[in-house]
C-alpha cells in the first residue's frame, strides 16, 4: 500500500452508493438465476434417482466431476464459446450447485421411513400424491439445508465471475477493480458485502426452515 492511503475511505463510499448498489444487484442476479436453475435440474434428477436407484451413483459421479473443475477455469474456458454473455457466468455457477442440491434432495427423499410410505399407500395415495403430500414435505428440512449451502457457495463463487470482465460485474468486480487500482476501500467493500450477503442468505434459510417445518424444531440441534 502506498504510504498515505487510507485503509478505508468513507468519503468514497458515500459518493458511490449508486455504483455499489448496481454491483450488489448484479451479484444477486448471479446468485439467484443459477440457484433456481440448479434447484429445478436437481429436483428432477433426485426424483429420478429415488425411483431408479441405479441412477444415483452415475449422477453423483458426474456432478462431482463438474464440481472439481476450478471455477476460474470454468469461466475462462466458456468465455470464448458463449462470449461475454451472462450465460458464461450462469452455466458454471449452475453446475456447481448440482452436486450439493442433488445429494441433499436425494437424501431428503430417501430419508422418509418406509412405514410412512406404506401408510400412504394403504390410505390409497397414488404415487404422485405420495410424492407431493408425503415425501416432499418430509424432505423439506434436508432440501432447505441443501439450498442454503448451495446459495452460500454460489454467492462465494459468483465473486470470481468478475475475472471475466465488467460485463458480469457483481461484488467480485469491486474486489478486482480495487486490487488492480491499489484502492483498499473498493476491494474491502466488495469483500465485506459478499460476506454479508452470504451471512444474510444463510440466516434467511435457517429462519425459513424453522417457519415451514415447525415439527422439526425439536431436533434442530447441531446444524
Amino acid at each position, binding site marked *: 500500500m502506498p504510504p498515505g492511503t487510507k485503509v478505508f475511505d468513507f468519503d468514497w463510499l458515500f459518493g458511490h452508493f449508486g455504483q455499489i448498489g448496481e454491483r450488489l444487484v448484479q451479484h444477486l442476479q448471479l446468485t439467484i438465476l443459477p440457484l433456481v436453475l440448479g434447484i429445478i435440474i436437481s429436483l428432477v434428477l433426485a426424483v429420478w434417482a429415488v425411483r431408479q436407484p441405479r441412477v444415483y451413483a452415475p449422477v453423483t459421479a458426474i456432478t462431482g466431476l463438474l464440481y472439481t473443475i476450478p471455477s476460474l477455469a470454468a469461466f475462462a474456458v466458456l468465455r470464448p464459446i458463449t462470449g461475454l454473455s451472462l450465460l458464461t457466468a450462469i452455466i458454471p455457477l449452475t453446475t456447481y450447485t448440482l452436486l450439493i442440491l442433488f445429494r441433499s434432495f436425494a437424501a431428503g427423499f430417501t430419508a422418509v421411513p418406509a412405514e410412512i410410505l406404506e401408510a400412504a399407500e394403504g390410505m390409497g395415495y397414488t404415487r404422485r400424491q405420495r410424492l407431493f403430500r408425503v415425501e416432499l414435505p418430509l424432505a423439506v428440512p434436508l432440501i432447505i439445508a441443501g439450498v442454503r449451502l448451495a446459495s452460500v457457495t454460489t454467492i462465494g463463487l459468483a465473486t470470481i465471475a468478475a475475472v471475466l470482465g465488467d460485463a458480469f460485474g457483481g461484488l467480485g468486480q469491486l474486489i478486482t477493480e480495487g486490487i488492480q487500482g491499489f484502492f483498499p476501500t473498493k476491494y474491502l467493500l466488495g469483500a465485506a458485502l459478499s*460476506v454479508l450477503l452470504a451471512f444474510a442468505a444463510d440466516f434467511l434459510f435457517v429462519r425459513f426452515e424453522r417457519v415451514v417445518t415447525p415439527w422439526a424444531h425439536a431436533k434442530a440441534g447441531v446444524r
Partner: protein
Amino acid sequence: MDGVVAFFTDPANWQGTTGIPNRLLEHLVISGLSIAVATLIAVPIGLYIGHTNRGSGLAINLANIGRAIPSYAMMVIPLPLTLSLAPVLGYDPTFGLDFLPIFLAMTFLAIPPLLVSTYAGLRSVDRDLIEAGRGMGLRERQILGRIELPIASSIIVGGFRTATLQVIATATIGAILSGGGLGRFIFDGLNQGLAGRSSIYAGAILVASLAIGVDLVLSRVQRRLTPVALRAPRRSGRSGPASVVGGPDLAAPAGGAA
C-alpha cells in the same frame, strides 16, 4: 484439443519458474502448508469439544460462519494488513501479496470441515463403549486414544479429504493476486485472449487431476484407518464411501452423516 496436447508436449512448459513442475510444486506447498496449519488448529479443538462436549455449540456455529465466507473475499480482507506489515516484520512486500493472504484464506477454508468432522467423529462413538472403557479403569486420555480416535478416524480423515479438495481447488484463485500454483496457467491464459485457451484447458486438467489424485490417495488412507470391524463392504448401497470426488462438505445437508 490439439492445443492442449501441444501445451503438454512443449518442453518449454516443463522447465523454469513458469513450467508445470514448478507450478505444481507451488500449488502443493501452499495447499500443504495451509492444510497442515489448519489441522494443527482444528483437530485439537475438535478432539477437545468432541470428548468433553464442552463449547460444541459455539465451535460448530463458528465453523458454519467460517464456511459462509467467500474465499475470494477471505483472500483480500487481510491484504491491507499483510501489505503494511511487510516493513514492520521485514518480509518482502510481494510475499504479503502473493503468498500470505492466500495462505491465510486457505487455512481458514480448511478449518471448518476439519473441526466439524473431528467433532462429529468423536460424537459418533457409542456412549456405551466409553462407559465400558471407564468401567475398565481407562483414563480420559486413554479413552480418547484407544476408543474414540480409532473409531472416529475414518470420519476425521473424511473431513481431511473434504478440506484438502477444497483447498486444492480454491488455491487456483490465488493467481488473481499474482500467487503461484497451477491457477497461473488459467489466469495467464485468460489474459492472452484466444491464444491462451490451451493454457486454460491445461491448467484446469492439471488442477482437477491433482485434486482427484490426492483424493484417491486419501480415500485409501481412510479405508486403512477404519477399524476392520467397521469397514463397509467395497460395493455398498447409496451411502457407500464418498465417491471418487468428494466435493463440498456435505455433512451439513446430509444432517451430519459422514
